[in-house]
């Protein structure tokens, strides 16, 4: 893909109606770019707005696991055809009473980051920079692909006694509407 196309893609992405929010999760910015190594990268700024119930649980030491699900499949794929790309980024946000800090733990790489404030932790949680999605070479250049991204709070990762209530109560439905875009590499 040449520079013109790359710019065009970004322009198109920015032109997409963002600010799509379901309950507590908003996509502020999403961009798919092509790296110098001919890989498609994902950049995103996702804003989290925790309601009082979830915030109270966090303050009381309940670990919250957020999952960012990135999917890519052919537009004309059969039902049984598997996705071209499927990434699940799982990150745990937890308050540490000893240090008084909010800790982010990346479950993929066991990376830990501490933050003095909840907002700082959530900002970092929502920032995705240069996440490799797929090598362009792996794609069929004639096909059209559908990229779908959604972010949600994983209720199944909550402590067991909280799950039935979390499934029932709307407060715990922290999730974005799926963001979709058609891509022709």
């Amino acid at each position, binding site marked *: 893909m040449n520079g013109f196309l790359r710019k065009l893609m970004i322009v198109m992405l920015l032109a997409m109606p963002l600010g799509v929010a379901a309950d507590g999760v908003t996509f502020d910015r999403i961009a798919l770019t092509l790296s110098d190594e001919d890989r498609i990268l994902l950049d995103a700024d996702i804003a989290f707005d925790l309601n009082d119930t979830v915030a*109270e*649980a966090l303050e*009381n*030491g*309940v670990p919250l696991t957020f999952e960012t699900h990135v999917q890519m499949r052919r537009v004309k794929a059969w039902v049984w055809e598997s996705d071209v790309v499927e990434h699940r980024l799982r990150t745990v946000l937890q308050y*540490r*009473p*000893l*240090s*008084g*800090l909010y*800790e982010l733990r990346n479950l993929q790489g*066991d*990376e*830990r*980051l*501490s*933050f*003095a*404030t909840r907002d*700082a*932790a959530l900002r*970092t949680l929502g920032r995705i920079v240069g996440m490799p999605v797929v090598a362009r070479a792996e794609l069929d250049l004639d096909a059209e692909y559908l990229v779908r991204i959604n972010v949600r709070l994983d209720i*199944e990762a909550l*402590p*067991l*006694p*909280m*799950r*039935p*209530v979390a*499934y029932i109560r709307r407060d715990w439905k922290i999730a974005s509407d799926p963001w979709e875009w058609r891509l022709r590499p």
Partner: protein
Amino acid sequence: MNGRRFDMLAAGMLVVLLLAALHMISAAVQRSEDLGQWFMPLLLFSVVGLVLLFALVGWNLWQLLRDYRRRVAGSRLSARLSVMFLVLALLPVSVVYFYSIRFLSSGIDSWFDLQVDSAMEDALTLSKLSLDLHKRERLKLTENLLAAIEDTSQTAIALSIGEMRATAGASEMALFSVQGKLLAMSHDNPEVMLPMPPDSGMVQQVVGGADYVGVASGPDGRLVVRCLVLDRQERGIVLQALYPVPESLSDLSKNVQDAYETYRTRAYMRSQIKFTFALSLSLVLALGLFAAAWAAVFTARRLVQPISDIAEGTRAVAEGDYDKQLPMPRSEDEIGFLVSSFNAMTRRIARARNALEDSRRELLNQHNYLETVLAGLSTGVMALDGNGNIRTANPAADQIIGMPVGELEGQPLAILGERNAALLPFVERVDEGLRSAAHVGRAEITLYRGSGRQVLLCRHSALDDDDGDGVGGHVLVFDDVTELVKAQRDAAWGEVARRLAHEIKNPLTPIQLSAERLRHKYLGKLPVEDGKVLDRATHTIVQQVEAMKAMVNDFSDYAKPTRLQLEPVQIDALLNEVLALYEGGTQMLALQLDAPDLTIEADPVRLRQVMHNLIKNALEASGEHGCVVVSSRVGEEEDSGFVEIVVSDNGPGFDPELIGQAFEPYVTNKTKGTGLGLAIVKRIVAEHGGLVHAENADQGGGRVVLRLPALARARAGIAAAAAGRAHGGGGR
């Protein structure tokens, strides 16, 4: 597999699966780390399973209620037993559930009393204090390290940072610009190329003039002390140093933190924990209750089924279904014995019923056979009960009696007399016979009907009643022998006539000749007075002999077989011709002819004789100024044509007592004549294959109706053979 067994198997499998699911839920609650992921699917499965079980129980209860309302056999007992079992199961389970929930709630509450709260807070505070000392030392050390650097250039500082880190015993040391840009770093692991980034809040705090020190978890999970110090020499740099907390202190602090977090999280989740346990317990309760309810209904039905079968069977037998056989219960208990006895009883009843049915069918066949025979009889048969009421009668009886006797079932015999007075002699005679002590009787009864005299030959037999010591009824058998009697009488008259003709006619001629000779020989020789006497006497003898001859000739005509000279005769022309001879008399003679083109085969001489006899009779009967009407018409009956000639007068009509015998010889109410006129008419008509009968007209006067076949079948031979039959038809 029948429905009930399928129900049992399905419910059993469902209960087992639910038990397994609840057990796994319990395990998942206790070991949430391993089995926590199965909690919600198991919970969902349990709820769905319980809904299914509830539906199954509901279906069974609904069936029970429906049967109860419909009063199905055994449903009441089933309902009572089900309710009893259910109450027995419900009471202890409810008590256990109530107290379990209470114990559970108070047990969970007891985890979180104030003392434990305080202890946990104290432990955390203690950990913080011990770490604070360590933190202050490290902050001081970091500040000193940064102050000890005398180089002003950032590059020089960057070059010495590794040495500083090693000297201070830090695991990581990084130098940032106040804008947050990384200038240099050193890590005890050379592979780590990026420092643990401070968040913007920390940097802002440091830039604001207050150094930052805090505890964070390192990449390996161990606690580290993070120090962020601003350069006091205004070189625009910030130093971040990460010092590992001593292992013992780190472990202890981490343990305290983990315990505190766990405690605090549990305290926060107290209500959810209670809810989860209560939910699990409720699921178990629901499973227990539903299973008990289903088992109660199932067991009650199974227990009651044989009794229901017996009740159903009894009802079926009461309604006449004797083939009902009940399924034998598997258990050989008292109910099994009862069912077996019931089946044996119904088998015996069915056999008896079948035998009875065979007998009834045989009886019916016999009855039908008898009825067919009776219906085919020309003899009248009438059955009366012991009181003389009519029970049944065959068609011949209806015909002879002249009314539908069969429809008068249950009515007394006297009703026949009430409906037709002519039958009174019959009723009285029969009644007399029934009253007599004789079991069998015989009588000849003569009735005077509108159509003439009717002679019945009647026999009666008394029937024994059921006990055999009384009269249970009567059978009346009667024949209409009118025709037979008439035929016998006609034959007798024929014989008389023949003998008269033979025995009397022969001496008449010598008598006449002798008388004439006496007169001829002695009339002239005797004195005048004597001659007058002789003349008168011989004249009388000759005259009377002539009269006797005429009479004997009549007898001869009546008695001797005739040979008909058949030829085509146009009937209206013949009637015109005959009536022309009577014109000019004092009486009125009218002709109403309506058979102008009809020709029959007949002997015109004999036919004229018939008409003369009839017209003479009518004229004599109607008196001096009477009126006689002769009419003809063409008719058709049973596919054969005929001509009907009616001679009617306005005289007094026939004597009702004699009307049936009007065509017999010497039956007459006239003072003169031989009394053979109508008898000869009947004979000639019979020879022509026709019928004749006399009747009284409704408006008065007598009528003689003559019917002759239009087709040429009135042969003499046939007529002679049919004479007997024709006599009967003409007389009625």
